[in-house]
């Protein structure tokens, strides 16, 4: 019996040692994100699971909706109740390189700026800017004719600069002098690492759905804050109207729940929800062009309110 077991062990071990990494043969190779005959459109905020070589450029902006900020009180004297809006500008440049059919590596550079649109909101909120550089790996876990699942691991290194005029003036009043411990411009490096599970399902050639869930461990953006674990999740539904109306138009709607703090929405004291709608061009697999509108709903000052709307132009080139 022992000899039989030993022979079986030898045979199985030889098979393992000579096994090659298997590439899936379930899906025909295509430059763009095609699965089950459906061409998926990317939605900013919902990371896609496709292993492709793609370059991306996105430019976006937005504004808050009559954000009500707490009044400024010095001592027991009411000074001013700031009103107005905050403008946010963002830019993303990214590239993903397919190494094998089951592995890709990606890098992205993101710049976000946020500032008040009038004197009072500019004084109260100042100017925040954040630059982040993100590196990641994406590995295919499962692929069938209609379903694709991947895991990705990424690292984000960022630098946040805050020009807090309100805080600076308060510091001058308190210390009665301009001191180095109270700088006008404060910078804070921040490092995040995240593990994301991504999936795509082709309902039919016209409709498809993508989803993701993400766990992030990172440093606080605010100096002195403690590092923490955050969870994000999202879902999107894509429709390719080209097959129904002969018009190369794709509509994509999505919802993202996010706990990770960000410069753009630091007014929100907790997690927030972002709804998105994208109008995209679906005439080719080699190029993706779309206009995306976002609306954010979150907790500001202890009260749930929709407080941000924005838009973004997104272009991607598939090789």
């Amino acid at each position, binding site marked *: 019996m022992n000899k039989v077991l*030993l022979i079986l062990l030898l045979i199985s*071990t*030889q098979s393992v*040692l000579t096994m090659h*990494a298997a590439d899936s043969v379930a899906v025909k190779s295509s430059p763009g994100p095609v699965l089950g005959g459906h061409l998926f459109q990317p939605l900013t905020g919902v990371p896609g699971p496709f292993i492709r070589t793609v370059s991306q450029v996105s430019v976006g902006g937005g504004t808050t909706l009559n954000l009500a900020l707490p009044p400024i009180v010095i001592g027991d004297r009411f000074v001013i109740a700031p009103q107005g809006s905050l403008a946010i500008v963002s830019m993303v440049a990214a590239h993903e390189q397919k*190494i094998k059919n089951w592995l890709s590596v990606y890098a992205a550079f993101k710049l976000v700026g946020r500032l008040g649109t009038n004197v009072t909101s500019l004084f109260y909120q100042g100017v925040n800017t954040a630059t982040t550089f993100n590196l990641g*790996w994406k590995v295919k876990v499962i692929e069938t004719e209609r379903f694709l699942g991947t895991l990705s691991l990424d*690292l984000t290194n960022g630098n946040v600069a805050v020009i807090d005029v309100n805080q600076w003036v308060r510091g001058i009043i308190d210390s009665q002098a301009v001191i180095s411990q109270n700088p006008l411009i404060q910078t804070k*490096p921040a490092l995040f*690492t995240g593990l994301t599970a991504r999936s795509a399902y082709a309902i039919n050639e016209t409709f498809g759905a993508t989803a993701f869930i993400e766990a992030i461990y990172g440093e606080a953006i605010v100096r002195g804050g403690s590092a923490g674990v955050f969870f994000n999740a999202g879902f999107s539904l894509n429709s390719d109207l080209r097959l129904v109306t002969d018009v190369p138009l794709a509509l994509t709607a999505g919802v993202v729940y996010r706990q990770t703090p960000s410069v753009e929405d630091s007014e929100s004291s907790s997690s927030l929800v972002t709804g998105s709608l994208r109008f995209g061009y679906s005439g080719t697999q080699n190029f993706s062009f779309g206009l995306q509108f976002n609306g954010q709903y979150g907790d500001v000052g202890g009260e749930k309110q929709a407080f941000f709307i924005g838009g973004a132009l997104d272009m991607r080139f598939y090789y």
Partner: protein
Amino acid sequence: MNKYYLLFLILVLGASFATAQVHLGVSGYAQKLSLNGDSPEDQIVVAELGYGAGLSLGYFILPEIQLTLGATYDVRNNQVSKILPITDSLVPIGNFRLTSYAVPVGVRIFGGSKTWYFSSGVTLRFHGNASVNAIDSDSSYSVSSAFVKVEGSLYLGFGYMFKIGNMRVVPELRYEQGLSNILNGEPLATLPPSPTLRSTGFSFRLFAEYAFGGGQ
């Protein structure tokens, strides 16, 4: 019972070496690693050219995936400059040097032609001596106590394997991102509270390895 298990072990190891390959060689590199994060007030730290050299080991677990391990002596150089007010021009005031022993552990994943590859892994640096050479007074100060003894970082790179008989000459360009704060945590008057300093930068490496058994 024992001789059967010994036979099994010998056959498995023999099959392993018959299908996989071991590369052993040396490596040398030039690097520019900057210290990203909090610099002292009115000062800026700029990366200068550093270098390193050591041993490298590679083991193919699959025809297109190679595990790599290295042990190198690593030198990092940075220049500390003072930012002049109003003009914001830089005046060099000191040269910072940090020596360490680095152990990179990672993988090389080869493309279809099995010549170009993508590499990724982690590097552990065991810091030795850190010093600052003041330019004006031409004197050197040890600042080893300001830095932690072990630093971890992540690297990504790509390279190409040239085959010359059983020799493998491999140039590689690598980007490295520090994961840990290299400051010792002691509060310094010239730094913001909770200061953070991490390494980021590029290195160009050249590996010369011997492929035992030939083949890939």
